[in-house]
């Protein structure tokens, strides 16, 4: 579904991405991990069109999206949530979801028909708050709304940027179940970035580990954790 090949990006002399490659198949949940400043967010920004890579390519289902801008990536079926929540705060909860659904209806009417906004809101326990401004929701509800809004785009690739940040253990457990349900019901490719390794290990069949702008390991979750370079990065970081 998604294939990123040898993407590099330099910001004023700092090389944020060096020949980073990854792929994610339909129905797969890929974990993207690495220490702070490893380039995870930069890579997500390159995939979602926010950043234009210096070199390399980003393709979604054989469609070249390299440097196409966020609007076109969204229309091509890439939905994302934001690490620091970015809702349309003064619009109501329902309107936040509707905005995404409008775009979906424009570009993939069949996918839009399968999405029922009322059910989506109910499923994420947002139906009771459907008519209040999104900015007035609690933190946890705002996080759920970010996901509901992304799903209303009818995505073929879903990028979740630190969805478990600020959640307690039970909450992140529930979140993991919800993401698993998304994979099952929507059949999209999902990439999850997070620092909560227990959450990531439980959820992701495959991992991609980044350090200093490079992808240092990728493969099945268990295999990746046996990789000496990964151990070095993580043990080196904690000691």
């Amino acid at each position, binding site marked *: 579904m998604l294939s990123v090949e040898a993407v590099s990006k330099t910001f004023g002399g700092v090389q944020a991405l060096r020949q980073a490659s990854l792929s994610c198949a339909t129905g797969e949940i890929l974990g993207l991990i690495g220490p702070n400043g490893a380039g995870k967010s930069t890579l997500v920004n390159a995939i979602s069109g926010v950043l234009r890579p210096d070199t390399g390519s980003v393709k979604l289902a054989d469609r070249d999206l390299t440097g196409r801008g966020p609007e076109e990536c969204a229309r091509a079926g890439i939905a994302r949530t934001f690490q620091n929540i970015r809702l349309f705060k*003064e619009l109501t909860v329902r309107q936040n979801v509707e905005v995404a659904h409008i775009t979906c209806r424009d570009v993939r009417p069949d996918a839009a028909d*399968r999405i029922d906004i009322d059910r989506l809101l109910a499923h994420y326990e947002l139906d009771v708050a459907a008519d209040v401004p999104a900015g007035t929701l609690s933190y946890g509800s705002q996080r*759920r709304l970010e996901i509901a809004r992304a799903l209303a785009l009818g995505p073929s690739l879903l990028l979740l940027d630190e969805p478990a940040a600020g959640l307690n253990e039970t909450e992140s457990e529930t979140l993991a179940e919800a993401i698993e349900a998304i994979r099952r019901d929507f059949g999209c490719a999902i990439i999850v970035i997070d620092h909560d390794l227990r959450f990531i290990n439980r959820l992701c069949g495959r991992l991609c580990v980044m350090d200093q702008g490079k992808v240092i390991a990728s493969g099945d979750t268990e295999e990746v954790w046996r990789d000496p370079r990964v151990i070095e990065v993580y043990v080196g970081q904690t000691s």
Partner: protein
Amino acid sequence: MSDSAETIAARPSSTATRAGNGQFRRSLVGGPVTALPAVVIGLAILAFAPAYYTHLALAAFVNLIIVVGLQVFMGNSNIANLGHSAFVGIGAYGVAVLSTPLAMKKLSIPNAPFGLAFVELNPFIAAVLALLVVAVLAAISGKIISRLSGVAATIVSLALLIIVHSVFLNWTDLFKGNQAFFGIPKVINLPAMLVASVAVIVIARLFKDSRWGLQLRASAQSPQAAAAFGIDAKRLRLMAWVLSALICGLAGVLFAYFAGTISPKLFYFQQIFITLAMLILGGMATVTGAVTGVIVLSIGLEFIRSIESGVTIAGIQLPQLLGLSGVALGVVIVLCMAFRPGGISGRLELDEQLSRLFRRNVR
């Protein structure tokens, strides 16, 4: 997350389109409800008030149309616009040049270029042509404004106002410069003005509640998130800018057709500030806010003007307080910005407030 076994994406449905139609119908009903207070006041004046007040009311309704036009762009894009009077002026001068009787033109603009000194069009056709000019100029200026955001866009709108004003002042062959342009056919009365106001309010509501209005409001609140959900903010800003300009242009046309005489200074800073203060006071997020601001400030300013010239209360002669209305206008903007930035009406339209109140009472 709820643990219901049913999946979210299972049921094929057409709720989306149904919801869309429902929204359209709601705004069609909501528009007239929003306009209701203005209509009631207008009809009351028509029925009971002396002629002097009718003239005041006509001017106030022109302001109402300008403020609604201003709301279409500012309220949805959240970009301050200081140039809207340029379009009011173009609308007014457009019909003045096109529809003034030839005998009058011989006196005022005998040397008009493009043979315009010998053109006398039916007022309706003149209005359509004037609005066409407004649309073209709005599309050109909008191309620039829509690429910018925040302060830069506001400064460009201000520059536009100054350019248009200079052209009115200095192209004397066509616009008569500093002097009043008189003899424009007076074809608009209060009932016609009321109809135009209601129409404009309904259009503003339809735009705000439409998918484009919703998308534009979303992009104003988080440009990054809007882009990540496929919204083309530039195109939407352009759309709102042109619609806003057309409404302001219409206000100019109507003004010229009821006043019969216009001059460039009418479409300059004083008008900008008074209409801006009305929108800020009423609340720019809603069309209801635009209507509320115009009503409150029109009545308030008229009251202040009456004491400005010095009145006698209970045998005591108050001194003249010239300039009081200008001070009051500034104070209104400052106080409102400081204590109630959302304005009087806040986030909800009148019909939404009413239906909420109704639902609460039923419960």
